[in-house]
Structures are given as structure tokens and as C-alpha cells.
């Protein structure tokens, strides 16, 4: 699975990095991006789904690789 953050939607709530810091990181202004190429490790899929569902701006997409 791969994650992506739509930069046009992200509004720096930061919930993604709280839920799943192995996949999502925040920059110095609080905006989210994926770590590396956004690959989600098997054990982190549940946390990544929570991050996507909880994003107030629905800025996260998860795609089965």
C-alpha cells in the first residue's frame, strides 16, 4: 500500500502524523507529507487507514500497490 497527501487540501491539522508517524511527517509549518515514497509497511496499514479517515480535509489517499 502507498499513501499520498494532496498538498492543495492539507491544512496542517497534523492528525496524520499523530496516528501514523511511520508514514506521515510534518514540516516546520505543520503541513503533512509522506515519508520516503509513501510505502506503508504491512504492520502500519491499520494506523494509515485511521490517519486517512481522521484527516479533517480528506487530503490523504491510500492506494493498494
Amino acid at each position: 500500500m502507498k499513501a499520498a497527501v494532496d498538498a492543495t487540501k492539507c491544512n496542517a491539522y497534523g492528525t496524520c502524523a499523530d496516528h501514523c508517524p511511520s508514514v506521515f511527517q510534518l514540516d516546520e509549518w505543520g503541513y503533512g507529507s509522506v515519508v520516503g515514497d509513501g510505502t506503508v509497511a504491512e504492520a502500519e496499514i491499520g494506523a494509515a487507514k485511521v490517519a486517512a479517515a481522521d484527516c479533517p480535509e480528506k487530503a490523504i489517499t491510500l492506494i493498494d500497490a
Partner: protein
Amino acid sequence: MTPASVLAGPHAEGADSARRAAVHPAIAPRLVVAGSEEARLHLAAERALGTYEPGTEGGEFLDELERSGLTGRGGAAFPAHIKWRGVVAGEGPRVVVANGEEGEPASGKDRWLLTHRPHLVLDGLLLAARTVRAGRAVVYLSHPETVAAVRGALDELAAAGDDRAREVEIHVVDPTYVAGEESALCRSVNGGPALPTAKPPRPHESGVDGRPTLVSNVETLAHAAWLARNGADAFRAQGTAASPGTALVTLSGACGAPGVYEVPLGRTIRQLFDEVGGGLAEESHGFLVGGWFGGVLRRERAQDTPCCYDALRTLGSGLGCGAITALGADDTPVRVAADLAAWYARESAGQCGVCVNGTKAIRDTFARIADGAGSADDRDKLVRWGDTLPGRGACAFLNGAATLARSAVAQYPEAFPAGA
């Protein structure tokens, strides 16, 4: 402080570099043909050159496109055959768009091409439409003189009883830097604002009308039309193995003869200025390459670099749209960087938080350094943003600001506050 003079590019009021063009003395011209240098070629003159005559078509043309090595002349230098085949692979109906928006401030070559050889661009667009079997063909423009020239060309075709004139639409958009980005283009043609969208999907998957869409720079289409009639071997007779063909470049700044020139790819930056640009001013200490998108390059490091896509990429820059500005004595590195960074912060479309904040931070940091109030920490921040911000926005705009930050420090280290 006085703004750097370099910001008065071809699009600045009164600039006339897009009004005439010339040819490098070593080549037979493909685009800047005799009679077109200062005036629009009308239909009869174009027909005499073979424009609108059929050449290689369909799958055979796609093979020829691959053999030619033609890459996109709008900035990204993406292989044309991969882009065209990507659209063919999608389910029809498909759409083709000639992108003549040219939001790059230092570039005037697309405006020259559209106002002097609009028929060749239309010929390339119609070729693209036949090749990808498109149901819709659009010319995407922003400058009034390009709109008038393309309208005039379509009227000439219609008056000559050529039905193909009716197959082409013109879409006019307000000129901004990001309006020429391909996802912004699709959004605008679809009736929305000319602002980029997140990828995927890319236009070849879902663009205008949600259909597979070929968005091609107008110069790329003109080369494609030439290629269809002359073949890949002739195309490759100019340029280098990795960057074949000719290109339109816009030379500006501290040189003897700023303007638009058709040149073979692979000449060094210094050769280009010497051979067509009237010579570099002695005091010129560096360049902006690839418009304002490839950062700054120091003269002694860059002037003997060939103008081909790979060589400039190796320097951390890029030939991009082929615009090269020679920096003059007044264009001190930090002042130029500060002015360009202010432009980036102003021109950000304001869609992506990271772009709004990143461009502002780069602007403020360069301004502090330019005012003599910068610190080593400021310099380190510029380096870090140069590394971490590329790829973060929905379009490549933020990458340009990041490249500016990284290249200014790397190319002119002595101009920045030293570490403790």
C-alpha cells in the same frame, strides 16, 4: 535597494525580444525560416514550405517520434513519444491541447513562434490530433497578440476552404506562471480556475472533459510537424545524441543582442552568447538558466556547459524552456535571489500551504541576507529547504523556489553568512 535589472524579462512592458528571431549560423533553420524572422508567415508562404502537407502518419509517425528523440520544449523535456503513446493507450475520445501560455517571465520564444509561424503550430496540433485520434483540439493562449495571430491563421485556413480550421478551438486564459502547468490548463479548459491539481491523475489519464489529454508545448508541436515531413534522421542531424534537434532559446540580460534564436542543442552557454547573443558582457558573473526555474549558475562553473538537457541537469539546473539570462554587474547574487524569491512568494497560486509558507520563508530569508542582517542559520535553512521542499506542492512551482535557494548558496557561497 534597487531591484536587479534582470527582472525586466521579455514579458516586461516595452521588451521586444519576442518580436523578431534569428538563426544560429551553423544550421539550416526549421522554425525561424527565411521571411519569418520579423513577420508572420501567411498561408501561401507556409504552403510553399510544405506546411499542412502530409508526412509520416499514425503508428509509423510514433516510431519516427521515438527515433527522433524529440523532448518537450515547454520545460520538462519529457520524451514526446512516451507522452503521445500514453494518450493513445487511454480509451477514446481523446483531446489534444497546444500549450502556448508561456508563463515563464524570461522566455519569449513561444510568443515569437505563435505570432510568426502560427500555421506550423496548427499543423503540429492537427498532426497530434490525427495521431492520437482526438475528438477535440484546443490552442491554449494568454497573450493578446498570440490570440490574434492564431485566430488570423484559422481565418486564413477557413477562407481557403480548409475545413480543418473548424476543428480547432482557442481557449484564452489570464497570464500567470502556473496557468501553463498542464493540470492547471486542463482545469481551465474545463471551465475552472487555471490552478494545478494533485497528481495522479495526470492529464494523459484524465484531463480535458475527463478524457485522456495530450498537452504539448507549441514549439514541440512545431518540431513534430517538421519531423513528420523530414524524418528522424534529418531531425537528429542537429544537436547531440542525447539532446537531438534544434531549439528556440531566449537570451536576455548582460549581452550584446538579447532575443529569440533557433540554435542547435549542445552549444555551450558561452558559445550561444558569442555566436548569436552578441557576446556576454565582460562583467557578467553568472546566469539564470531555464527561465527563472533552474536557479542561478556561476559563470566560471557554467559557461562551458553544453546547452543540452542532461548536462544542465548534472549541474542541478535545467535547460527548461531554453531561456538564459546573463547576470550583470548590478545583479549581485543575493540581490537577484532576493528579488526572484519575492516574485515566487507573490506568484504562488496560494493553493498549497507548503508552497505559501515555503516561498514566503525563502523570500524573507533572502531579504534578511540582502539587508546584511542574515545569519549562518539563515544560510543553512536555505540549503535545507532546497533539499526538502521539491516535490511537496501539487505542481513544480515550489521546486523552482527551492532550486533558487539551493543553487544561490551552492554557486555563490562567499555571498552568504559563514558558519560559526
